[in-house]
């Protein structure tokens, strides 16, 4: 029979364990990375061509290439961790990833939660890829209509509240695309950069991006909030300035077949 004493000792042991199970305080990320020899970067695995999988299972794309540049500069190995919109900030906060380059819009609300390093590295706005037959001309046309979305996107609430659309949010872009093609919704609210690439494909021939792009927000990569002014944040700031100065990002854009964006050209001219 389990005596009172044994039970209490076990309980005390568990309590002691949980007390020490705190997140470690203030280890500098840059030192940790160099010590570990591996840079862990959170990237998308379902957002072609910014982050997607090839047949061997590796994550490739515009953003993984950026991550590789950082790892090479630091002289360490690169480990890519697939993230989605609904968990990318949490992973960064928890310290599971050192750096997050995951097609994230830079907004003031997010700047309170994670450390978004300036300058931003890309830009996109919110738009809807809709079925041509739905004939959406202005944003008010989405009232009461079913619009597919991605769970965790910051503009879902905005579109639902401002224009009265019924957002049907899925866990990933694959599911949202399938639902759109099947007619479960008449449009998909997402970044216009994603649509620019998709609309060139034949299977999206019946779709269009007819609404004006709103909420143009630049994309930022992020480090932990406490590190933003520390050595790691400064390192990433320098990397970003360099990328723009050297035109590396414009070259990556061309490599992955992304239509040239005026935002990158602007920043390249600014830092030249």
């Amino acid at each position, binding site marked *: 029979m389990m005596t009172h004493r044994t039970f209490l000792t076990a309980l005390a042991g568990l309590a002691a364990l949980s007390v020490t199970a705190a997140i470690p305080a203030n280890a500098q990320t840059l030192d940790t990375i160099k010590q570990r020899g591996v840079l862990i970067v959170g990237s998308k695995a379902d957002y072609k061509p910014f982050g997607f*999988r090839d*047949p061997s299972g590796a994550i490739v794309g515009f953003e993984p290439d950026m991550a590789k540049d950082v790892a090479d500069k630091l002289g360490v190995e690169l480990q890519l961790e697939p993230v989605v919109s609904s968990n990318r900030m949490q992973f960064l906060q928890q310290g599971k990833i050192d750096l997050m380059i995951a097609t994230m819009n830079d907004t003031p609300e997010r700047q309170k939660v994670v450390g978004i390093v300036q300058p931003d590295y890309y830009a996109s706005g919110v738009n809807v890829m809709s079925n041509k037959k739905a004939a959406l001309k202005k944003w008010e046309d989405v009232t009461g209509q079913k619009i597919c979305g991605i769970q965790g996107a910051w503009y879902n609430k905005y579109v639902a509240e401002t224009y009265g659309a019924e957002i049907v949010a899925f866990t990933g872009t694959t599911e949202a695309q399938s639902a759109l093609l099947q007619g479960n919704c008449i449009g998909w609210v997402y970044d216009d950069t994603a649509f620019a690439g998709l609309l060139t494909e034949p299977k999206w021939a019946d779709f269009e991006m007819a609404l004006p792009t709103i909420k143009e927000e630049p994309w930022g990569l992020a480090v932990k909030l406490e590190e933003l002014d520390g050595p790691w944040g400064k390192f990433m700031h320098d990397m970003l300035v360099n990328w723009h100065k050297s035109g590396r990002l414009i070259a990556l854009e061309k490599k992955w077949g992304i239509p040239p964006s005026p935002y990158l050209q602007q920043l390249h001219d600014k830092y030249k």
Partner: protein
Amino acid sequence: MTTAKSTDLPVLLAVRKPEPSSSGGFRLSLWHGFVLAAALLLSVAAADAAAGPAVASIPATIWKWTPLIAQGFALNIAISFLAMAIGTVAGVPLGLAQISLLPPIRTSSWFVTQFFRNSPWLVLLFYCMLLLPFQIQIGGTTIPLPGWFKSTIGLSLPVMANVSELVRGAVLSIPYGQWEAAESLAYTRRQTLWHIILPQCVKRITPPWMNLYAILTTSTPLCAVVGVNEAMTLTGNILNAEGRTDLLIPMYLYLLTWFFLYCYPIARATLALETRFQVR
């Protein structure tokens, strides 16, 4: 009147095989796997016929991605083994605590069991993924907790509760005569449980325990929803990378076939064990 085989005073009746089940007692053990595979081939052939000549054929595409799916599926199996192990190791003491003589232990373990039995598995998974820290420090060493491990913990919680119920039910189903006999031989309660009762319970627990394992395995795709890269997430990534709608049905049927070919033999083995271990 009687033939040479029978006597009018049979001493030992011939052994009779158990009655075949009312479902017809089909013999082919992988019959249904073949049905699934046939459905797969049919859909593949149909999609192949519909696709243009410039597009890679569906079987070739599926074959191309099979190593990745195998990798993901291996993770599913690993998660199921680990969650089952952790759940069983935690569940047995919890089940024994439910029949403890001390009221506080009894009530608290009953409460814990009922709580985890009645919580949805997906909610527990979210809980563990989002609220457990990413690493813990015991003494001076730091142990990292990767995402798949956290979701394994999440899955082991309901397993623990179910095992606890199984253990409690099995212990209570042992005839009371066993306890009385042990008491008359001066066994302490702990010795009775450990040497006499629990060994007899093992046989009773095994079929429902294997059933629980099958349920657990079919629940491992839930980890995909919380961001673990197992077979289901990878299937989604593959469909995204390929970008073809005619690949949807074949890919998902393919994934279903993987799970079926793993779980069905377990189900058959469980059935066989049930008849063998039947307590008369």
